């Protein structure tokens, strides 16, 4: 066990898996010599050589497209996109090929690849550095989309992602890269993709969130507990495929549902979760399923971002409204 933050856990996990499986290769912009702008890949080039950990030219479509080719030819590429807001040039590769190669070839060509990227906002960054792609990736049939909220989960989920025979998009909440440390076992373990986690059992309302917002939601829960509201808090962990059972079981128990997310509201991930609740727990609902979501605006650059990103108080107010409905 060692105390690690999220980013050092990612680094440790990549190291572990590169040592175990010589087919794992890691690359992207500034990933090699520099070790990544967030230092996710620090030391890997020194340890595994520049054939297995390397810098690429500035070309996201090529990064993802080359990963497709490498996966076809027997490797397990782990590509880094420097920020989720720079994945759009690779969107054609992701949607037209990453998500489809297996289906197109009727199972002949598996694509065991991982695309990692810092995700979400709240780090006072420039434009395009705070994007939430839950819907834009989650809506694509053929992808798995995962996002951890703790170092412990990051390790287990990333190992699952790299070992998965299908492509996995791995969204890393950059806001909490260095926000806190946690005991992370040195040895390997996996956490299943497609399973949400009940962080706190509760009776009054089901609150679903993921990524950096998990921690604000837990704070909101503290506020609400003092008021006598006992929420069940669920960390989604996997955006796609969604763990409907865990959510529906919870809502059938609590009768109330709130989803909280960073992404813009309209056509956002919250809508899907509300739909699932409608489909699986309608008759149990004592209040309308509700989303506490980002505004339908471009995420503001730093001096305006506090208007956009939510704190525990704002989450608590939203949850309270549904409980008092």
């Amino acid at each position, binding site marked *: 066990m060692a105390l690690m933050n999220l980013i050092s856990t990612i680094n440790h996990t990549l190291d572990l898996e590169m040592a175990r499986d010589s087919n794992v290769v890691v690359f992207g912009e500034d990933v090699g010599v520099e070790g990544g702008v967030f230092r996710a890949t620090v030391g890997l080039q020194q340890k595994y050589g520049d054939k297995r950990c390397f810098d690429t030219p500035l070309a996201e*479509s*090529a990064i993802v497209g*080359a990963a*497709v*080719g*490498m996966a*076809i030819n027997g490797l397990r590429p782990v590509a880094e996109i420097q920020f989720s807001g720079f994945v759009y040039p690779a969107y054609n590769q992701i949607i037209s090929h990453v998500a489809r190669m297996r289906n197109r070839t009727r199972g002949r060509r598996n694509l065991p690849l991982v695309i990692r990227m810092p995700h979400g906002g709240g780090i006072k960054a420039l434009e395009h550095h705070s994007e939430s792609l839950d819907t834009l990736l989650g809506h694509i*049939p053929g992808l798995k989309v995962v996002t951890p909220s703790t170092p412990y989960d990051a390790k287990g989920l990333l190992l699952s992602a790299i070992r998965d025979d299908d492509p996995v998009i791995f969204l890393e909440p950059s806001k909490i890269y260095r926000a806190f440390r946690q005991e992370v076992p040195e040895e390997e373990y996996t956490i299943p993709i497609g399973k949400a986690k009940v962080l706190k059992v509760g009776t009054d309302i089901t609150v679903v969130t993921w990524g950096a917002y998990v921690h604000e939601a837990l704070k909101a829960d503290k506020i609400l507990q003092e008021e006598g509201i006992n929420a069940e808090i669920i960390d989604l962990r996997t955006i796609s495929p969604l763990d*409907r059972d865990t959510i529906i079981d919870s809502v059938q128990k609590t009768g109330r549902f709130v989803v909280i997310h960073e992404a813009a509201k309209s056509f956002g991930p919250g809508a899907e979760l509300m739909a699932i609740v409608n489909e699986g727990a309608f008759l149990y609902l004592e209040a309308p399923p509700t989303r506490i979501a980002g505004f339908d605006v471009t995420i503001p650059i730093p001096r305006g971002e506090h208007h956009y990103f939510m704190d525990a108080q704002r989450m608590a107010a939203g949850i309270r409204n549904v409980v008092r409905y």
Partner: protein
Amino acid sequence: MLVEQYGPLKDKMLQIMDQDGIILRPELVPDLEDDTWLELYKVMVKTRCSDEQALLLQRQGRMLTYAPNTGQEAAQVGSAAAMAKTDWLVPAFRELGAWLYRGVDLEKVYLYWYGNERGSQFPEDVRVLPIAVPIASQLQHAVGIAMASSIKGEDDVTVAYVGDGGTSTGDFNEALNFAGVFNAPVVFLIQNNQYAISVPRQRQTKAETLVQKAVAAGIPGVLVDGNDLFAMYAATKEALNRARWGGGPTLIEAYTYRLGAHTTSDDPTKYRQDSEVLQWQEKDPLKRMKAYLIDKGLWSGEQDDSLSERFRQEALEVFRRVEATGETQLEDIFKYHFSEMPAHLREQLEQYKQYLEEVR
């Protein structure tokens, strides 16, 4: 080396055999057995016949959309024939000749154009990727496959095809540049058939040649008469060898012509002159190779006719088998997205089956 004489800025096109089948540069004729050339020619004929049959079937309303290869057989077969068995072939979508040579069954190809994904499921040991519809996107895969070969220390080379239209895309630049930086063992082969649907090569780029786009990536290139089987073989072979021996990527421009329509949905009379087509018919890659073979006493007009007849018959039989496959199975559209079918897909499939039961 050919790249030195016919490189990006030499303004010269490699031609070994002229349009009448006369060998102009005997010293450059690749060193293969006569029989082998005859075999390659036969694949070209098979490509042509399969094309013609597909067009006929399409006009009868039995085949769906089809993208013909007529006129481009030498570019395809010549390049594919230069490859080693374990090399990788990454097509655009108009590479029937290359596919057939490399062991993709015509049945698969017809099945694809008939509208069934099973047409893209090739046997395990056939190192050929399926058609990539989004133009030029396949070039990135080729680079990745090639990088993987070199990372693994294997000496397989990847050959990737793209059209003249495809050279205008962003992916084209990214792929060539990436390949250059990583010295990836890959050969990029532009089938410059002079049109991207209706847009002529001249309106696709101000560059005088397409091969000069190699300069941007700092990689070698060579301009080749794409209707000359010998030249195509020779140029590809040289590029493959360079790549295999660690010399990195090469760009080949195969200067050729799409004698037919873009696809069966297209009417080329809208955008090009018959006279132009006629001129290019004179340069037909089959015609000249046939003349060469007959001249060498390796082949005869009668043999040619009966071979064509046989290929046409075979193609028809193949299509009949394809036609008999009917519609895609419902399960097929669900089953292959993930190694293991997730719950929501299982449920959607079950619910739909239930609905089908009910309405039946």
